[in-house]
């Protein structure tokens, strides 16, 4: 079965820094892949390279069997969409929710914008009363739902999730993660989820890659992660750190810089 996303030997540079080193990732259709790492690991850069935000990269990126070049076009945008980390920054402060959701429909000439907007809001659990509000009138969780609705309104096959719940309260995070799980099942979506939180990624993803300094240092399935079967010392350290404050564990930390 051909993969929905196939990344081979991806290298990327930011100014003169080598930020991604030989990244290989393969994700089947309807799969969910997690990228975990600390800040500076390059996990968000992988997503940004896929969306065309990074200029300086080499390697092979195949999305739905089509190779990506330096530019992205409308076909790509109907295939893959992104949900950003900061719910407060990813919605235009001067646009109503209606405008935010209608714009992509009009650009891609999908028609029926009214019905689509109503449907998109319903899909993410928001009722019509939200439609003509401004982002500042919504809570963080509601904004993130709008961001998801915006991503879904173009009917993509792939969602790139850049720490989608990091800025949310824990109880809201649970709701949004459940929403994402449900959507993936109902719509047959493929996910790449980036997070610093091992537990979130372990919960949401089938396969996980742990990154450090631009490199993938270990891969594991969710099951292997659950059993704590990690071999790379960096991943083991990350795993132990997720367990809360434990002095013995902390004293054993090594500085990987």
């Amino acid at each position: 079965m051909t993969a929905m996303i196939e990344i081979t030997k991806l290298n990327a540079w930011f100014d003169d820094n080598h930020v991604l080193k030989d990244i290989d990732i393969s994700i089947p259709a309807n799969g969910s892949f997690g990228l975990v790492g600390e800040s500076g690991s390059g996990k968000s850069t992988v997503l940004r390279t896929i969306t065309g935000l990074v200029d300086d990269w080499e390697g092979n990126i195949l999305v739905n069997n089509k190779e990506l070049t330096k530019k992205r076009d409308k076909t790509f945008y109907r295939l893959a969409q992104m949900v950003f980390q900061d719910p407060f920054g990813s919605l235009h402060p001067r646009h109503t929710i209606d405008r935010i959701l209608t714009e992509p429909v009009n650009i891609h000439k999908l028609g029926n914008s009214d019905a689509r907007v109503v449907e998109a809001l319903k899909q993410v659990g928001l009722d019509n009363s939200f439609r003509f509000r401004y982002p500042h009138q919504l809570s963080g969780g509601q904004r993130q739902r709008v961001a998801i609705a915006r991503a879904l309104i173009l009917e993509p096959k792939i969602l790139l999730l850049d720490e989608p719940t990091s800025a949310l309260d824990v109880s809201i995070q649970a709701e949004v993660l459940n929403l994402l799980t449900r959507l993936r099942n109902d719509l047959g979506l493929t996910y790449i989820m980036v997070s610093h939180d091992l537990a979130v990624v372990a919960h949401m993803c089938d396969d996980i890659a742990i990154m450090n300094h631009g490199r993938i240092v270990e891969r594991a399935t969710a099951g292997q992660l659950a059993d704590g079967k990690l071999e790379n010392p960096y991943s083991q350290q990350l795993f132990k750190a997720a367990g809360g404050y434990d002095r013995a564990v902390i004293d054993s930390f090594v500085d990987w810089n």
Partner: protein
Amino acid sequence: MNISSNAVKPGLKQWLTSDTPQSRWQAKCGRAWLGWLKFTENRLAMIGLSIVLALILVTIFAPLLAPYDPLAADLTNRIQSPSAEHWFGTDQLGRDILSRLIYGAQYTLMIVALVVITAAPVGLLVGTAAGFFGGWIDATLMRITDIFLAFPKLILALAFVSALGPGIENAVLAIALTAWPPYARIARAETITVRKSDYIEAARLQGVSNMGLILGHITPMCISSLVVRVTLDMAGMILIAAGLGFLGLGAQPPMPEWGAMVSEGRQFLLEQWWVSTVPGLAIFIVSLGFNLLGDGLRDVLDPRGGD
């Protein structure tokens, strides 16, 4: 003066303050209403607004308000001091100063409006383009802006008018040519702040074109700063227009432009002070009005204060 929100009909008020608007228009009106309420809390700003509104009304209703024909000379009545028949006296040709003042308001308003309509969009476009594209586009546009900024406004306006010839249209053009550069800078600064935001990124990923991003996404974020700056600049524009008029390079006689009126009264300044002073005061009051209005707008529209 404080306009209480109770002065608005209850049905309308409910429509404006509803937290579940039913259309984009309602949402926009609601936001404008909240901005208006905040504006009315500022007393000085309301004074400024009143002055500007008075200017507009005087311009529109000039024929009804002016007791005399502003151009009718009456050489038997020259330089009369203020009296019951001529509230502000008459000038050196016996024309009623009050009427000339009233009819002169239109020139002030026209100059300000025309300059803003030409200079602000140009500045906005240049600034957003420069800030958005960066690179050589930014460098080129900014150097052009720098060239215009390097000249003092009045001198440059004088130079243009001298080259183009006196007259009110040329005065407007001259002032507009000097007015746009600061708007370009402001727009550019806002654009640079905004262009790396996630919402711009998200729009790009939805397929919005560069033009769409500049016009629909970035420009709205620049408007607030620009409006404040433009309003504050209006006072300066009035003064430059008056200055040009004073030098005989703006409105030509017998048009009752205020700056020209001040100039014409110079020779009588010591004895018959009202001929120059009254139009001078009018210029002062209107400039002050625009300044206060601009300050009030800044308090309401300051983007740093959130919405």
